[in-house]
């Protein structure tokens, strides 16, 4: 079990940039992947003998395939603009958690083997040999990056540390050093179809239970269909939505909206997972294979539209990559973008007045909204610039009467990661996760004190799970994190006449 004995950061009114403490979190590293998980993804089971050579070959390969990596390893001015932008640096004080510090772990090896000054004058340009110590450092610190891209927004060149951490993870996987949490999960999706390894019967059973709950609650027969051919919509949602709290309340909300709008829809047991951890490990191949399950499900079930549930990185892969990885989707209804976010669907129905809300249903809550990093900085909604910020907010404001934004430096494109993204939502990294949640918790505390905010909404399964832990850790209540479609579902005026 992970060490939970670590100093709890204090929540301050005005966030401070801490003095750096070298090696403050050098002891942190997630459990390593075992042979069975590695080999199912096409990676060696343990550190290969000639790992240095293989790692450098892989680096060369990636430099020839990703312009981002090629340009970003060369272009950093070491200006320091990013050094106070990462939530993990602010929470841990470890200089290797400054975005440039993290990049330099890979850049120094790149310089040593791929640039002239690094070959001839390594000390001068900070180039280092690829040793076992360096590999261990990579493993530690490239698993202290949630790939949230906050640094990329602030960098004058747009250097995206996520691109570098993904490349580092792929290099490590290729020499047999993988992370258990991510690789085990990817294996489950390849084999069963979702991160949790829920087989079809268990899924059917869960959804049946959900229908009964909603019936008890509202008196309405809202269906949560599975593998129903010829439905209008294939809903792909993170598997946490099937039973975790508050995720499941979001799923209930999607069902209510689609029911009320009269849109036939189905989940798929083949593509029962929106999440795509292939992105976290920087593996185009794995990401593509996972994405293709969604295409296959859409074809098999003969649906007309694909809609994604509330999941941050899943929406990044869906919005930004799905068409590239698994398209073209010319077999779907061309009147709708592929894929759509459930917030876009609900927003559209609201604008067309097909669904209506009674915001007083949520009068027991005062809301704020956490922009999930991957939605905010790596996707869009509604095809207007900034739609990923305005559409969720408009939905919340339609569903509740009391809403306040957090500090402007902590929302929208400047939002802080929850601290658990990028494949770090595992108990072996609990210290990192709690420390990384610090900037968000400080911003939340301020609106709690100033405006009496009681709840924070999010549209990401990882954020919701991470905040359940972080909220109680920092002295809030764990149920203060809610799903956006939980609010929508509460406020939705359901038409009982149809019954």
């Amino acid at each position, binding site marked *: 079990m992970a060490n939970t004995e670590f100093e709890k950061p204090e929540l301050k009114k005005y966030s401070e*940039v801490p*003095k*750096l403490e*070298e090696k403050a979190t050098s002891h942190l590293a997630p459990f390593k992947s075992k042979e069975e998980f590695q080999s199912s993804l096409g990676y060696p089971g343990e550190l290969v003998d000639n790992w240095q050579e293989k790692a450098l070959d892989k680096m060369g390969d990636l*430099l*020839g*395939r*990703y*312009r*981002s990596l*090629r*340009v970003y390893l*060369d*272009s950093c*001015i*070491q*200006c*320091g*603009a*990013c*050094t*106070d*932008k990462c939530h993990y640096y602010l929470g841990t004080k470890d*200089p290797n958690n*400054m975005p440039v*510090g993290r990049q*330099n772990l890979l850049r120094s090896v790149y310089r040593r083997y791929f*640039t002239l000054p690094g070959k001839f004058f390594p*000390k*001068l*340009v900070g180039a280092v040999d690829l040793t076992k110590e360096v590999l261990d450092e990579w493993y530690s610190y490239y698993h202290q990056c949630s790939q949230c*891209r906050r640094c990329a*927004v*602030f*960098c*004058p*060149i*747009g*250097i*995206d540390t996520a*691109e570098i951490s993904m490349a580092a993870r792929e290099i490590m996987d290729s020499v047999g050093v993988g992370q258990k949490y991510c690789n085990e999960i990817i294996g489950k999706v390849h084999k069963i179809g979702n991160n949790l390894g829920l087989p079809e019967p268990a899924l059917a059973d869960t959804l049946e239970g959900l229908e009964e709950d909603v019936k008890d609650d509202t008196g309405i027969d809202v269906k949560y269909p599975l593998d129903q051919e010829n439905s209008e919509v294939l809903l792909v949602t993170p598997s946490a939505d099937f039973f975790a709290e508050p995720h499941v309340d979001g799923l209930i909300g999607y069902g209510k909206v689609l029911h009320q709008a009269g849109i036939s829809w189905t989940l798929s047991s083949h593509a029962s997972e929106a999440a795509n951890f292939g992105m976290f490990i920087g593996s*185009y*191949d794995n990401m*593509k294979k996972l994405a*293709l399950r969604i295409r296959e499900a859409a074809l098999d079930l003969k649906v007309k539209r694909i809609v994604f549930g509330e999941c941050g990185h899943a929406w990044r892969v869906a*919005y*930004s*990559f799905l*068409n*590239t990885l698994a*398209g*073209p989707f010319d077999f779907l209804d061309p009147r709708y973008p*592929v894929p759509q976010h459930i917030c876009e669907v609900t927003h559209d129905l609201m604008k067309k007045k097909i669904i209506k809300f009674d915001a007083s249903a949520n009068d027991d809550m005062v809301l704020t909204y956490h922009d999930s990093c991957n939605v905010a*900085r*790596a996707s*869009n909604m509604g*095809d207007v*610039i900034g739609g990923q910020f305005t559409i969720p907010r408009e939905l919340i404001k339609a569903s509740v009467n009391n809403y306040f934004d957090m500090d402007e430096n902590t929302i*929208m*494109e400047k939002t802080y990661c929850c601290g658990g993204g990028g494949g770090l939502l595992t108990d072996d990294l609990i210290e990192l996760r709690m420390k990384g949640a610090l900037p968000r918790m400080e911003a939340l505390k301020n609106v709690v004190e100033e405006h009496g905010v009681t709840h924070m909404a999010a549209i990401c399964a990882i954020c919701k799970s991470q905040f359940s832990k972080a909220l109680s850790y920092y002295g809030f209540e764990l149920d203060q994190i809610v799903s956006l479609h939980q609010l929508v579902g509460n406020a939705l005026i359901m038409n009982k006449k149809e019954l």
Partner: protein
Amino acid sequence: MSLVTVVYGLLFYFAFLILVIGLAYRIYEYAKVPAPLKIPTPPAPKTKQGVAVRIFREVVLFESLFHSTKWTWLFGWLFHFTLLLAAFRHLRYFTDPVWFWVSWEIVQAAGHYGGYIMVLALFGLLGRRVFVDRVRYISSPSDYLMLILIIGIAVSGLMMKWFHTDIFAVKQFFLGLMYFNWAELPSDFVLLLHLGLVIALMIIFPYSKLLHAPGLFFSPTRNQTDTARDNRHIADWAKKLETHK
């Protein structure tokens, strides 16, 4: 022809070749490597015109840096802007007849007085490296040396205001290099220092972090349109992985 003239003449040819070929090769490399996925950061433009505006604002205003760190922005922007002014002023050495706007008093004065601001800005940037613990941590010897080199160029350039140099002869020297009709280079120490440091900078450019200049134009987070749902964005190497129909 003096030894100094021959050495500097040859060095300038060498440095010029390294700079141009090195930079062209880097740009070729950046252009050749595909960006296989759409990764623009917000606010991501939907059109190519939007991208052009975005890059323009980054290049001219350092917009992201402005939102990031005001001091670094101030020093960094002043340095680059005064560098541009200095470049304009120096065009008089390379154009004959001098382009009309280069000889304007305002252009010449701005280039000169901008030089003092440039030195202050460079010391500001150096100060950040020395005094801000986070920036000190990431600074390697080359980061300091690069600043010192540029400070050296700026200061030696400004010093020629006081240590007389025959700038007409300097111009003849450069025109001579350009048109392969060599002329003597005055062997004043400050001038030779100034030109020597410039040669060093030209040689270092394609092998150093100065590549941030072309890098910005090739940065996928900044130069991509946000059209991921409209078009597939598939790299040649990724096409080979296509298994579905």
